């Protein structure tokens, strides 16, 4: 059996990667929002996620105990070494694409951190409780927009429906459960990921119904993020993100 700290380390790294990669996408909205207040709202969520990424990277560092820092993980790995869900790395697209991604992700995170706040691991429990407060706001933000766009104009309705349809195939991966998940969940440290799926589906259905939108037919769900097999989008994101750290490896910023 794998060492429990090693499992927790993997777990922490995954959570950090989800937050870090999604925060990067949201930060790309800066100065590009549909109006100033919304520009600031998206940046706000990005900042919450950066803070979360840092906290989980720090915990991973502590568990690994080899003196690596949060920045080493954020900036010095290759694309096959990132373990975020594919959904997090999907490009911003138009505003509807970003909002659909936010809804799917935030609702998942809500149930995930609800459960993780009861973790027997004190650090996970404390970080989950803090994160949950932020995620509650993120859900309201995303769900309000999905409803407004769905029940707004014909154009916005089409755009958000297309966004939902386009991203749907990346939602199944959120509930992927591998050995790490199973072992940590059995020990009361991690979350029973599969059990979240029904909660997630019910929640999403309610929002989509209010928004007069259709739930896509699930045909095929793409996975791979947890094994470090990503979409083509991640490599380009990392190329940009890591540029200074890679070009000046001896420099401190």
């Amino acid at each position: 059996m794998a060492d429990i700290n090693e499992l927790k380390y993997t777990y922490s790294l995954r959570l950090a990667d989800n937050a870090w990669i999604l925060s990067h996408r949201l930060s790309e909205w800066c100065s590009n929002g549909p109006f100033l207040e919304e520009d600031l709202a998206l940046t706000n969520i990005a900042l919450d996620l950066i803070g979360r990424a840092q906290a989980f990277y720090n915990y991973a560092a502590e568990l690994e105990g080899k003196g690596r820092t949060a920045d080493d993980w954020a900036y010095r790995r290759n694309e096959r070494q990132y373990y975020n869900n594919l959904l997090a790395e999907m490009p911003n697209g138009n505003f509807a694409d970003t909002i659909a991604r936010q809804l799917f992700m935030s609702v998942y995170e809500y149930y995930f951190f609800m459960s993780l706040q009861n973790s027997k691991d004190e650090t996970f429990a404390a970080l989950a409780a803090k994160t949950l407060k932020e995620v509650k706001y993120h859900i309201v933000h995303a769900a309000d927009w999905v409803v407004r766009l769905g029940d707004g104009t014909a154009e916005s309705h089409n755009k958000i429906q297309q966004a939902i349809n386009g991203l749907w195939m990346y939602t199944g991966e959120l509930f992927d459960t591998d050995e790490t998940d199973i072992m940590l969940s059995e020990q009361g440290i991690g979350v029973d990921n599969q059990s979240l799926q029904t909660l997630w589906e019910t929640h999403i259905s309610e929002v989509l119904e209010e928004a007069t939108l259709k739930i896509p037919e699930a045909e095929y769900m793409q996975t791979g993020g947890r094994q470090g097999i990503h979409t083509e989008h991640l490599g380009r994101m990392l190329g940009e993100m890591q540029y200074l750290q890679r070009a000046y490896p001896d420099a401190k910023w």
Partner: protein
Amino acid sequence: MSNNTAPAIEDARLSKFEERVQKGDAIEPRDWMPEAYRKHLIRQISQHAHSEVIGMQPEGNWITRAPSIRAKQILLAKIQDEGGHGLYLYSAAETLGISREDMIEQLQTGKAKYSNIFNYPTLTWADIGAIGWLVDGAAIVNQVSLQRTSYGPYSRAMVRICKEESFHQRQGYEIMATMMKGTAEQREMAQDAMNRWWWPSLMMFGPHDSDSPHSSDAFRWKIKRHSNDELRTKFIDKTVQQAEVIGLTIPDPELKWNEATGHYDHGEINWDEFYRVIKGNGQCNKQRIAHHKRAHDDGAWVREAAEAYKVKQAVKNN
């Protein structure tokens, strides 16, 4: 202002207004004010708001390349503050009877200006340090002076803004200081940024007092309380020492301490460049406005959807 107000009443109002301003009273949105005062303020406050908003672009240019988690967090939070300043200032301008929509249109059609400094490009990470330290540093000198400006909503916005700007300035300086303690390449990058941003920062205070077209009314009405040259000198005096401490050279061979005045003297500012960029021929003038328009146009369907939804809800609830 109605056209048939008798001139005598008009004169009485004006002298009462000027008396209040002289006493140091704050003028509030509901108070009578001369049209020229209102126009001056709309021009100045909206220009200030647009500067905050357009300024998000050159800094935003480095968000996705910020070199550490902390650096990214600080930069993103800073840009968010700038956007927030834009919001207070738009609200302050709205109290004078202009809508945000009209202000945005004036920005996009070139009728309203924004700070010329943002027509310069951010080429390296050190430029983010230089903007925080020099550009925000120059802005603070100007804004501190505006905290006591005669128009209440503007003055109150300035008080809030100044608190945040001084953080930004320290953060920018910290970027420069860290780079100057770093590798040879980092030091070179920092000095290069200094060389490119120093002179445009001095230009931020506007033309010499003798050539400043909007000054006289602004002084009489206490919108403006210190002259361009006074503020520029103040900025130079405090910045020279900060540069020395971290080992940066000010790119002005004529810069020297003047015992008699107790201030630094500086070399001649390139006013041809200043007017050329103001007239639209800077590296980024077209890019900045095109970016603003693109984001605004791309967001039109979102704003329309929000409006349509609001109308539908109002109908439902009635």
